[in-house]
């Protein structure tokens, strides 16, 4: 149908204006604010790309946060083969696998506050009744007990683990769905032709499951950027900035130190980083899918 002015102004215009003001405009403002030296109250001084220069060339802490974000993404992605294996076993051995998957999925829908505080209690030192330390004592590994979230050497790893714990079920669900989508006839034909389990995996399940690996990978990557809330409700970036990632650094610079311009520079970097990463992931998978000749 042709778009009439009436349809345009009733259906399209209000929603578009709403979206542009609430989403696109603020992101644009981030880039603009990043050009100023501003504490939010006094006069803002235009300093061009000064904040970006400082951020990229003069702030070792920032590159630490980038590294932690990348590690976070890496760990989340490393979980995918594991989830795939688990999903394959569930699909192979259970008629009502969906129910087992549903149990694995439960932590995914809990809020970061609940998950974060639950794990904070688990990680508590012995003197505060932490579950993990109690288990270590039970196993006579007393030397390993510690205050997991206040030890700068392990706090970040303790948080990576929480995210892996929470999102395992999401990847199991995605991989399980992918495996269920593969037509049975293909595998039955392969069995008749004398293929073994490994060959079926290698030549049928794996290539046909590529779109689902892609979904899991993108999710793992986006999820690692959203670890923001988990960190804010547990360590807030501490102890001694040991668990600071890009987004928490942006938050603390903007809202705690009131470096609005500098915080906005980090926010802008985060936007470009996300766009670039999505682009790279999509390009890699486009070539993979082409190689195996399947539409993504």
């Amino acid at each position, binding site marked *: 149908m*042709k778009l*009439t002015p009436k349809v*345009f102004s*009733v*259906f*399209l215009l*209000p*929603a*578009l204006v*709403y*979206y542009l003001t*609430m*989403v696109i405009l*603020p992101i644009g*403002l*981030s880039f603009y604010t990043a050009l100023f030296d501003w504490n939010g109250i006094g006069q803002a001084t235009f300093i061009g790309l000064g904040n970006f220069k400082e951020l990229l060339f003069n702030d070792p802490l920032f590159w630490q946060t980038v590294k932690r974000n990348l590690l976070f993404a890496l760990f989340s992605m490393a979980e995918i083969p594991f989830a795939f294996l*688990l999903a*394959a*076993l569930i*699909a*192979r*051995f259970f008629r009502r696998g969906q129910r*087992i998957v*549903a149990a694995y*999925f439960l932590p*995914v*829908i*809990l*809020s*970061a*506050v609940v998950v974060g505080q*639950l*794990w904070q*209690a688990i990680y508590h030192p012995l003197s505060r*009744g932490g*579950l993990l330390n*109690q288990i270590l*004592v039970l196993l006579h590994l007393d030397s390993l007990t510690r205050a997991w979230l206040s030890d700068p050497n392990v706090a970040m790893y303790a948080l990576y683990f929480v995210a892996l*714990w929470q999102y*395992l*079920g*999401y990847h199991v*669900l*995605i991989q399980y769905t992918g*495996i269920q989508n*593969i037509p*049975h006839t293909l*595998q039955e034909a392969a069995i008749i032709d004398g293929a073994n389990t490994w060959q*079926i*995996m290698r030549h049928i399940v794996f290539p046909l499951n590529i779109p689902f690996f892609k*979904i*899991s990978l993108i999710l793992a990557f986006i999820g690692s950027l959203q670890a923001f*809330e988990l960190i804010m409700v547990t360590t807030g970036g501490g102890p001694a900035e040991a668990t600071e990632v890009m*987004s928490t650094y*942006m*938050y603390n610079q903007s809202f705690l130190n009131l470096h609005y311009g500098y915080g906005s520079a980090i*926010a802008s970097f*985060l*936007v470009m980083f*996300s766009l670039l990463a999505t682009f790279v992931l999509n390009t890699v998978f486009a070539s993979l899918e082409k190689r195996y000749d399947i539409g993504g």
Partner: protein
Amino acid sequence: MHSRPQPNLGKWFITIFIIFPLLITQLYPLLWLLLYSLKNNDEILSGGIFSLPSYPRWENYVIAIQNGHYLQYLFNSLIVTFSSIMILLFFASSVSYVLSRFRFRFSQHIFLLFLAGMMLPMQSALLPLNLMFKNLHLLDTRWSLIFTYSAFAMPISVLILTNFMRSIPRELEEAAIIDGAGPIRLFTSIIFPISRPAMMTVSILAFISAWNEYIIAATFISSKSLKTLPFGAYSFVSQYAVNYGAIGAYLILAALPMILIYVFLSEWIMRGMLEGAVKG
């Protein structure tokens, strides 16, 4: 992979050594929290990872509900979440209707503009939104949350709804057009009702993200009476730092609505989250 399940040794082995132990690691922390919430400090600190409370200390729940203003925050969360979903459905369905049914010059660009929104991290908009709401005197009101949640749920919703509406056969509308129905009638009496399954998916995704959201609420809201449940739970935890049992009780109460919904709607929720991941 999917030959019919055979009851053999392999199944028992895998069940006992892989699937159930993992299930326990996934769910045990929640059970532990439940036990924790029914103990007093002495029982919690004296340890024992499987120990039951000598008797359930329901007073932890009384403290959480009364001193922690649980019902007030639950009510706030309900209002904010449902208003966001309403606004979201209103805007997202109307945009999707136009994008799926009308030909015009920039339709592809507008669709891409919404797609791009999915890759924008919401955190990056936190400071500018904070300043915008402050200037509009909307900071520390429910609107600041409702607007933010509904707007940032638009990209995925427009994508899901547009794809769904494109798949609706046009024959249905052609009959109505012959009967003289205009674009608004077509939308309200054909497209909107048929799109209910996709609306359900969109609502589930928006519900989960708005219901669980913490950082925006903690940034925009300062009045005690307007806090949402995650924010309220967090405040309670910081305030009652040494009353472990009551903290456990509050966390259980905070998780409870979502768990109840999951018990009844797990199929829908999993399908919705799956679709959200696929489209994302």
